[in-house]
């Protein structure tokens, strides 16, 4: 166990020191952009919208904005770090060492989770300046945050494994992740959508994460919380199996 813990902790420490060393690129930008979201959508526009499902608009969107930051940063950390390791070939340092692939995966995913949680805390602190955030259910809140950051760290890993050039690691966040986040109920309740678009929204995984987190914070969700957790578990297990299989086959890292 000791022999597995040391390589695991080495990867995690390396990952955390990587993103903290470049905090101007990794920690500061989400703090600034989320502040702008709170000022513009919450304060300026939100005051004219009124309430949503019984909550002031800024209180309603705050959990979604926090979740958006966690999703983006968990994903970005793993995709950029693992692809960078492939590009500079220092992934070979791990491949030549007697580290099982699940430890490599766990190390990178943990790095993504740590960054996601750290950014989540930073954005929550920012949110406290604009909203009166309460935690309705702490266990659900923590569980959703952890599972969401694991899911998107794994997704980032899969993207990095297949990426052959830097364009490949920006295409998915720009053309898939961002639309899914914006259409995932961060800024609105899906009850506002026509029936057809409500059904389409059910295929968006981020809808379950945002609503489960909103339930943890506000006690309010468009989705049944058990259903949301089942979906989160399915996503986690599926992505875990896919990424481990890809690593075991050496896709993108071995010739």
């Amino acid at each position, binding site marked *: 166990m000791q022999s*597995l813990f*040391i*390589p695991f902790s080495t990867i995690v420490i390396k990952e955390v020191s990587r993103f903290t060393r470049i905090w101007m690129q990794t920690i500061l930008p989400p703090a600034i952009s989320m502040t702008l979201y709170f000022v513009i959508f919450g304060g300026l526009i939100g005051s004219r919208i009124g309430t949503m499902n019984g909550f002031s608009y800024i209180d309603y969107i705050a959990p979604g904005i926090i979740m958006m930051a966690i999703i983006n940063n968990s994903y970005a950390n793993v995709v950029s770090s693992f692809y960078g390791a492939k590009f*500079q070939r220092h992934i*070979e340092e*791990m491949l*030549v060492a007697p580290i099982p692939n699940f430890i490599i995966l766990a190390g990178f995913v943990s790095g993504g989770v740590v960054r996601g949680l750290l950014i989540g805390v930073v954005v929550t602190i920012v949110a406290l300046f604009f909203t009166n955030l309460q935690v309705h259910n702490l266990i659900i809140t923590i569980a959703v945050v952890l599972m969401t950051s694991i899911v998107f760290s794994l997704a980032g890993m899969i993207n990095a494994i297949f990426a052959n050039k830097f364009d490949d690691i920006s295409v998915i966040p720009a053309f898939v992740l961002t639309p899914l986040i914006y259409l995932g109920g961060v800024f609105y309740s899906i009850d506002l959508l026509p029936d057809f678009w409500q059904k389409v929204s059910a295929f968006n995984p981020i809808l379950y994460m945002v609503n489960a987190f909103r339930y943890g914070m506000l006690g309010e969700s468009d989705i049944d919380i058990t259903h949301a957790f089942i979906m989160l578990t399915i996503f986690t297990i599926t992505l875990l199996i896919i990424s481990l299989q890809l690593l075991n086959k050496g896709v993108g890292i071995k*010739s």
Partner: protein
Amino acid sequence: MPALEINNLKKLYPNNFEALKGINLNVNQGDFFALLGPNGAGKSTTIGIICGLVNKTSGTIKVFGHDIDTENTAAKACIGIVPQEINFSQFESCLSIVTNQGGYYGITRQIAFERAEKYLKNLGLWEKRNECSRNLSGGMKRRLMIARALIHEPKMLILDEPTAGVDVELRRSMWDFLTNLNQQGITIVLTTHYLEEAESLCKNIAIINQGQIIEDTSMKQLLAKSGKETFFFDLVDPIITLPDLNCLSSQLIDPTTIEVEILGRENISQVFDVLSNNNINVSSMRNKSNRLEELFLDLLNNNKLN
């Protein structure tokens, strides 16, 4: 038990390029072994498979008796690799690159730090330990990769062209360092394009060409096969015509330089005799190329003809 045992190793790349056509190779414990071959011969593919960076198509490899397929962890723990290309993070310090590598091998932070200090000092990099690795010179980067490869104190060190692009002085100091490691009992497998390097360092040698081992013998035996040697004689005064050198193959390169090819049992002193009898004074004599180099080219040419 050999340090390295390769049996019928084959590698077929997805584009149908057959990089290895069933090679067999044994490296004994404590050996200083040269694996030579032209570019694209299969050297790096072989090393990549041994180290787990390339998937093999078929065949078996054992490292100190550990099969890389069934005892992967034990096999990898025996190997230290210094690759051809720089493959560390350009944004990390030298010390963290080496200590992190220790961590990947399950070595505690404290022991990794102690070993890093030892090897960085031995390789003249301790003063640069906190320097970002991208600021190092080419030679320093190569030495950093050697320190990194030694952090888990492997039984076998594999170096893929470690002195490529390194200046003469540094190359000599790296030779001394590697010789010292070998004397401590570490098996060393070396690929290089500097045949002088292989000749002066290695005890045994294999030559690979087009994915096949075309020679696998001791350096002494290989050099004994050397059929000819070519010399240049630099003359004190220019001459217009070349005197008959008793049937030795020779030619006048320019008025002050004669090229002479000496075959296996022929005697070089007769060249001096003839030149002396013709009142031609020699100021210096030198080899056209390294003996191993000539032999290497001959073997490759024969392989091509076959």
